[in-house]
């Protein structure tokens, strides 16, 4: 804990990974665990004494939770999200709340109302988003474990940009209770870690049916530590030809193709698959996600909590509060979603998008008849410089072109480091069948064991490999 806090003190001012740090409380809590460690033989919970960073859209009792927005500045939740309760019960120590694009809407953390986070690999570049703060905190060695949320790639894309592991579980595996909603049918909480083993460990703590979230799956969880080392021999890995075409940068294509070959060398079979409907994933996503967001964000009205801009009448108070409280991208998405749900447009936009979503899900199901996993890049590029895409929302949206279809289909997907391009990390994405999270993690773990990419650290963040925790990930 001491070493981690030293790195925070040294590097956080430049990175801005956190919106709220609880270093003092964390230090104190850690001492409590030290005492218990000393007493030999007592059974420790799985995350005993381990520091964890939480994306600031996860409600924490007594700790400010802003979702990166002015409209929630100063709000202190009276309750813990289910995942926070489970982390506490597992002995984890909360080190702080991490930066994000406002209400998780963005791919660069540039939409945070409290300023962007910098990429530990290159401070002139974005860390990705929207869980940019969590990915940067892990990459910088502040914490071995962090939580993000992923609506269209918000765990996997920043994990790829920051050279760490980001896992989005199957929709319904992890309770959303206490996650400030962006798009309810797409949002999923997941781990951001240094190793796949750590991601599996954290996922095991988070996952499972929650009576407070009726969309959680009532499906048995496998013993992840038992299956993790199963290797990839005999697994069929599908490469969708649509994911390797136009828009994909050559250096990324090269790294991802090489990763596929490594998996083949480890005993997997590579198969060619087709997912033609993912060409429509982006517009489909931006109709469904914004529709849900437009009503999820209706509650920020100045009446009960958060920002209130005083005004003469009720409707003036509503409009002034929301005009001043929300940033430009959030407003853009609320307007788009409101439009898509409006009378006369609902059938043509929202319902049509739902039909395409079903189509995408069916195509994945068909692909899984001939493949056990799907392999794609996490993003078409490596981390881009600040400001490069802020002027053109569509360019920014394209950063999630490979991650969005996975949310639309509700599938598990992981991003793991698979190379460096110009000194910046490249992410490899593996996607599995619904509720088959373990095969995704198993293959990712096998790849990680066979390669060294996960051991590379950004310069200036301390000793390589120091963040390795849990059930025995590879040491460099």
């Amino acid at each position: 804990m001491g070493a981690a806090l030293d790195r925070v003190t040294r590097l956080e001012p430049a990175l801005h990974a956190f919106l709220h740090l609880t270093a003092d409380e964390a230090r104190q809590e850690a001492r409590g665990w030290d005492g218990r460690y000393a007493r030999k033989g007592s059974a420790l919970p799985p995350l005993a004494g381990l520091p964890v960073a939480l994306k600031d859209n996860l409600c924490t009792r007594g700790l400010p939770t802003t979702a990166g927005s002015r409209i929630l500045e100063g709000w202190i939740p009276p309750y813990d999200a289910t995942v926070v309760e489970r982390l506490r019960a597992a002995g984890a120590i909360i080190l702080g709340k991490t930066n994000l694009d406002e209400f998780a809407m963005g791919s660069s953390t540039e939409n945070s109302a409290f300023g962007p986070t910098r990429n530990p690999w290159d401070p002139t570049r974005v860390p990705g988003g929207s869980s940019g703060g969590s990915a940067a905190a892990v990459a910088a060695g502040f914490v071995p474990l962090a939580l993000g949320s992923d609506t269209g790639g918000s765990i996997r894309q920043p994990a790829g940009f920051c050279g760490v592991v980001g896992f989005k579980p199957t929709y319904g595996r992890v309770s959303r209770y206490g996650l400030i909603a962006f798009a309810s049918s797409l949002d999923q909480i997941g781990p951001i870690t240094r190793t796949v083993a750590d991601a599996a460990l954290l996922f095991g703590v988070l996952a499972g049916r929650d009576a407070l979230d009726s969309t959680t799956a009532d499906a048995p969880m496998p013993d992840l530590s038992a299956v993790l080392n199963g290797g990839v021999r005999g697994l069929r890995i599908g490469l969708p030809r649509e994911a390797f075409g136009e828009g994909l940068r050559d250096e990324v294509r090269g790294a991802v193709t090489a990763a596929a070959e490594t998996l083949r060398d480890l005993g997997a079979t590579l198969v060619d698959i087709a997912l033609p409907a993912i060409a429509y994933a982006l517009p489909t996503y931006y109709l469904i996600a914004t529709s849900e967001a437009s009503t999820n964000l209706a509650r920020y009205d100045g009446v009960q909590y958060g920002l209130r801009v005083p005004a003469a009448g009720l409707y003036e108070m509503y409009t002034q509060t929301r005009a001043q409280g929300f940033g430009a991208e959030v407003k853009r998405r609320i307007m788009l979603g409101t439009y898509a749900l409006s009378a006369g447009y609902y059938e043509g936009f929202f319902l049509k998008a739902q039909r395409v979503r079903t189509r995408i899900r069916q195509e994945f199901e068909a692909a899984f008849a001939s493949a056990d996993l799907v392999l794609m890049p996490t993003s078409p590029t490596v981390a881009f410089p600040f400001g490069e895409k802020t002027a053109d929302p569509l360019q920014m949206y394209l950063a999630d072109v490979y991650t969005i279809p996975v949310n639309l289909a509700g599938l598990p997907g992981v991003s793991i480091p698979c190379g460096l391009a110009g000194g910046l990390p490249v992410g490899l994405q593996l996607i599995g069948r619904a509720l088959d999270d373990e095969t995704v993690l198993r293959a990712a773990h096998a790849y990680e064991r066979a390669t060294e990419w996960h051991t590379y650290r950004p310069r200036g963040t301390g000793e390589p490999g120091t963040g390795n925790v849990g059930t025995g990930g590879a040491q460099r």
Partner: protein
Amino acid sequence: MTPRAAPSGYEIVIGLEIHVQLRTQSKMFCACPTTFGAPPNTQTCPVCLGLPGSLPVLNARAVELGLRTAAALECQIHTRSRFHRKNYYYPDLPKNYQITQYEYKVHPPLATQGGLDLPGEQGEARRVHIRRVHLEEDTARLVHAETGVAPGHSLIDFNRAVVPLMEVVTEPDLRSPSGARLFLGRLRALLQAIEVSTGRMEEGSLRCDANISLRSPGGALGVRTEVKNMNSLRSVERALAYEAARQQAILERGDPVGQETRHWDERRAVTFASRTKEEAQDYRYFPEPDLVPLVVSEGAAAEIRASLPELPEARRRRYVDAYGLPAHDAALMTSSQAMAAFFEETVRRHPHPRTVSNWLVGDVAGHLNSEGRELEDVPVTPAHLAELLDLVDEGTVSGRTAKEILPEMLHSGRMPREIVASGGLGQISDPGELTAVIEAVLAAHPGPAAEVRGGKSAALTFIMGQIMKHTRGRANPEVVGRLLREHLTP
């Protein structure tokens, strides 16, 4: 209830939307209690406050009560239905959307296409069709404070937010204000019989809005107004009668009726247009993504249907067929669950159904009506009424005396036998008690006593009158006569 035209020849067309608070322990989407009258904001949690990150979880008991209603109203129960978000901004709506069941082709509400038979004037049934039964959450309660802790402010009590509501919507099948009242009364009795609702309109656990329009008989439907804020069965009838007359006056002037929402003012006995400007609201309904589709298996629906108790309409027919009650009495005996239960238990103790219903329809209802109270508000049980009727049968009290005992019984809850004994409303037949009275009267009136002994019958009448005066008319005349003869025989 025969279709009736307004005097001018217009036909009244009424459809009702009834909001029913379901009798559940907890709210629709969280575990908070639903107790009526708790101090403001003491029954809340992140879910019913709509706090960021909170999620709804459907109350299974509320679904069961909705299904019981759907089954009792002979509806088609949909095996797969969904909840929707109805989006609009108002401070009583913490999320700024209400979770409800919208009628949409691919996502039907819980149940549709049912009906409720009403007792007609000659006892024949007339069916009011039910368009749909669906579930939704209630809003918070706004209090506009004139005085108190926050004068000039609006206060919000979230205790009522997310309380389970069921909406029952009829087709426009009702043709008179009295018919609307009758329907609502019969629906209330049904909801009580199946233990879905308390039916207390004054507590807001049953709320009724009405759509009303006029048309030439058989013609196209006229422009309707929606009438709200009717807080009793009586005010439903009064408000609709007022509104029908108002629309008629407008039409007779040759003016068009404006489509608007109007509120009933009970005190002034008028409807008035809401101040808020009527604009076509786009609620942007869409399926609630935080809830999974509600699936009701055929088996579960069948089980619910099989578990229903005897419903008021079946019970009413049984009272006519088995007990021989007149149609009007049978309708009244089944007008509420409390009344039916009271009637049946009284009949069990005093097996003369027609006598029991006569008393309940007549004197009991009369007293309750004059005091504006309901049967369940008075401390009287079937045992009380049965005992009173037994006393009449035994000859302990006359029918007239029984009518005098009734109000005392309704007020104090004392048993009639006890009232008779202590308050002395029974006849005095005890020779010892009467002898004492006779001796006192004879001693006080020596003159007339002597005249009686001398054989003057006029004096006997006087003496008898004095004895009755002393006993406030309760002396048994036969026993007094016999005793007098013994005392006065020379």
